[in-house]
């Protein structure tokens, strides 16, 4: 694993005064210690402390299970007993392969669905093996033979276009190795970017399902379980597309399978945060069964596995707003960016002031695409004069494509071709279900 990709883990460590004190007494995390003050003394196990907290307190787990912070000022500290190294004792899992069941690969990229917390130290463990998954979700054994693989352990906000490629290659490898379907555990923040990227990079003969959790998997109410079980069921289905599988509502009832290019995180915290936008979900999974909601999906084995993994990461996604300064666009133009997606207002507009910069970008063969910050609906730049002027300046309207999908698509398309005209054509062509010709009444509010 690339150490670069571990950024963003919750870092636990004493520092400053507290560290000095502990070092001077050779006290380690997990040791049983006594802290004496004038009027009180506490005894318990020394726990680690979040690095962003101050260096004036020690964290103690008392025998009653509670943690408290004890200020080290005027306190006497003594070690009572050295702690054993905290370890998670887990019973072994029977991993015997069931020949009746298909092999499903679960690839972990980090994030909530895959985190195991060491409650003793409070540290987030990158542990993610098939065993861990099965231990937490023994029901999986009845559905499939599970293979687990951790490729990164990052928070999804730290995803980068290069990682999309890496993930796509790892998925392709699993498929080559005979996986009947692949599930990708992913942080929810940028799951829809990754799902869009995989949709463009991969041509897949089997289902590729991204899933995650809005409530961390260490809590009993986590949505991870239903999402994961449903994803494995989806991975066995006949729908050979890249999809996102998450709670359909805030109840633990059913999940939707959203097309990877037309899905978006729409709520900061709810379980049903992912919505199909300008379309409807492909299928619903309920009570362990899959119910297909539309017929226009890619069938299993109808495509050969193909990986088209050249990308161009120098692409920007810019939201326009009243008062936006054209300098912002100039910056990207001057800094050798190859593409810009504008998230314009309404039908696909931005202030007139930006037009000269857009014209300059166009002259330099920088692709400028227009999506709408309305999220719902289709851009149409023929209705108002600003739209028409923007078209004249070379802006590519990307129909009913999500701004995030348009960004990902441009990153990918610029990798696929160096010819601006070809890229422009690709941007307005439906390649992986990202553009639909018809906007149906039922799509909004979704």
């Amino acid at each position: 694993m690339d150490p670069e990709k571990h950024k963003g883990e919750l870092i636990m460590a004493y520092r400053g005064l507290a560290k000095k004190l502990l070092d001077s007494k050779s006290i380690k995390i997990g040791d049983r210690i006594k802290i004496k003050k004038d009027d009180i003394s506490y005894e318990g196990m020394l726990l680690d402390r979040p690095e962003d907290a101050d260096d004036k307190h020690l964290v103690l787990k008392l025998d009653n299970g509670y943690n408290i912070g004890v200020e080290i000022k005027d306190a006497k500290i003594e070690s009572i007993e050295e702690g054993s190294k905290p370890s998670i004792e887990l019973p072994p899992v029977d991993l015997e392969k069931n020949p009746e069941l298909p092999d499903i690969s679960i690839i972990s990229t980090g994030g909530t669905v895959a985190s195991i917390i060491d409650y003793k130290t409070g540290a987030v463990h990158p542990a993610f093996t098939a065993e861990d998954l099965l231990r937490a979700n023994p029901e999986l054994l009845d559905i499939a033979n599970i293979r687990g693989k951790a490729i990164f352990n990052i928070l999804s906000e730290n995803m980068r276009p290069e990682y999309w490629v890496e993930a796509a290659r790892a998925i392709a490898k699993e498929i080559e190795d005979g996986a009947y379907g692949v599930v990708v555990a992913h942080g929810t923040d940028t799951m829809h970017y990754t799902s869009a990227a995989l949709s463009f990079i991969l041509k897949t003969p089997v289902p590729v399902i991204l899933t995650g959790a809005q409530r961390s998997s260490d809590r009993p109410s986590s949505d991870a379980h239903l999402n994961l079980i449903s994803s494995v069921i989806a991975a066995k289905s006949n729908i050979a597309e890249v999809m996102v599988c998450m709670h359909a509502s805030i109840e633990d009832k059913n999940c939707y399978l959203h097309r990877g290019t037309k899905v978006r995180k729409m709520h900061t915290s709810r379980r049903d945060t992912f919505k199909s936008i300008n379309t409807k979900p492909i299928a619903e999974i309920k009570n362990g069964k899959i119910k297909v909601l539309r017929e226009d999906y890619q069938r299993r084995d109808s495509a050969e596995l193909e990986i088209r993994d050249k990308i161009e990461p120098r692409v920007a996604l810019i939201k326009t707003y009243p008062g936006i300064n054209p300098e912002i666009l100039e910056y990207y133009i001057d800094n050798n960016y190859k593409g810009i997606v504008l998230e314009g207002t309404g039908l696909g507009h931005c202030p007139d002031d930006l037009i000269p910069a857009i014209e300059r970008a166009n002259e330099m063969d920088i692709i400028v695409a227009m999506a709408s910050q309305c999220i719902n609906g289709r851009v149409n730049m023929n209705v108002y004069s600003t739209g028409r002027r923007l078209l004249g300046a070379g802006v590519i309207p990307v129909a009913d494509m999500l701004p995030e999908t348009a960004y990902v698509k441009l990153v990918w398309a610029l990798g696929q071709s160096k010819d601006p005209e070809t890229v422009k054509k690709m941007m307005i062509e439906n390649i992986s279900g990202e553009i639909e010709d018809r906007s149906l009444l039922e799509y909004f509010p979704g």
Partner: protein
Amino acid sequence: MDWDEIGLKMGLEIHQQLDSKGKLFCPCNCELTDDKPEYTIMRRLRPTQSELGKIDRAAFEEAKRKLRFYYQAYSSHTCLVEADEEPPHPINSEALEIAVTIALLLNMNVVDEFHTMRKQVIDGSNTGGFQRTGLVATNGYVETGHGRVKIENLCLEEDAARRIEEREDGIVFRLDRLGIPLVEITTDPSIKDPDQLKEVAYQIGQILRSTKVKRGIGTIRQDLNISIRDGARVEVKGVQDLNLIPEIVKREVQRQLKLLELREKLKNRKAKVVDKIYDVGDIFKDTRSKIIKGAESVLAIKLEGFSGFIGMELQPDRRFGTELADYAKKMGVAGIFHTDELPAYGISEEEVKRLLEHLDAGENDAAIIIADERDKAESALLEVVSRAKMAMQGVPEETRKALEDGNTSYLRPLPTASRMYVETDIPLFKIGAKMIKRLEDELPELPSEKKERLIKEYGLSEDLSSQLVKKGFADDFEKLTMVDVDNTLVASLLAYTLPELKRDGYKIENLKLEEIEGALQLLKEGKISKDALKDIIAYIADKKVEPIRAAQELDLLLLSEEEVGEIIQQIVEENEDMIKERKMAAIGPLMGEAMKKLRGKADGQLVNRMLREKIQEKV
């Protein structure tokens, strides 16, 4: 009973809701609602690995039931936080301040830094599968007549969701109560006398009432920890009436002693619990027992050497069999049959005989039958097996529920310590010396201090003063003394008359302080008599009318001296014969007659004086 000899040890845990603006981790209001729910959310909970790598015993117990939960939610009373759809907001600092104030009144050491923990509770009462809680203070005490009792811990935590009903497809909870801040106060478990236990509960209750806490039914809950030597720690939940505490203790002690006795008896018989579950459906093919007949399957186990002991009484009207049934019921079955009580319930002697034969049971062996869906019956019998095995060890550690008669019933195994892990969504809260100093300066008057002050300032008797404080009327009393009538009269009105009226069924809780004040004002202005006060207040409480109207409608306004004179004159004239005959001795019966007519409308002394004068005139 000699409590020392049996090694009785008790502890107390009090939960008290705080009266803060907003819940502990969101700004929803802390009122309950009986409105029709706007939303119902179905959820499932799963146990997770806990902090020390072990899976919690109690958590697993609940998990086995695989129950679904339905949460009733309202836009008016709940938000996404209660629904576990939004992370908790930072802790409500007002609630934390109230908790620290209580800790200071209990002579406790407040922690330097408050850490919010997750206490795993997967019975559905918390949408997250855990209750958020944190330790505020340790190491305090209260003084009692039996000596000092140590207060070990004070925690600030969120209240659980309200259990509304248990349906076939899951338990229904209402989210209105979830998140209301409460303090949990735990005493040292070394209390040795049931009366002291009751007194500590009372004392802490009094201290709580002097701070900003909620009042009324369900806002305070008492749990007891009880153990005897060789017995086990048992937690009794939900004690509503403090007066019941000594009885609950007595009966729990009795239960543990009986269980120890049972252990000896089982040992002597070389009793054994057989793990095998028998399908005995065939035996009951033609049974007349309706319960068995209607069931999908009939399963049985054999308890070797248990015959005669399953019917053994552990508490008045609760047998060992009741304990076994409690365990079985946790798996969703309606109950069990055991051979100590059979033949009965439509099960014939012949069937019992064939059952015992089928199990190859000897004369000392007993059998337990459960008739239900196969899965349920099987898991229920496994529970019975495990409880029967515990009987051979003695007293199991359990959480039990207080019943109204002082008995207890099994709820779940005692939770193990590994239920607690840190809540990472809430920042640490540094309490600090400055905050403590400020709260120390604003400490409310303690009940004992208040009692002494009322005696000194208002000349009340010890008894009246302590009644006022105990019943929570002290503040009302002080406000009412502004009216400037006799202090003792006001005090006894609050301390005795109101509770009396309440007992008689008047809606005293509807009474506003201004209304009592108005009635006292009438007394002060001489418009009503002292005797009329009680009736007028009762009338106001029921009819919700102004005090003066109450007096009018009851015909209790005082009459003028002239009017009184006329009535007395009339009585004297009507009874001239008696006066002639009995002379001044007629005053007795005539006074009675006069008061019948004038009660509440004239002062008794005045009536007496005028009557005496009129009789004298005649004589």
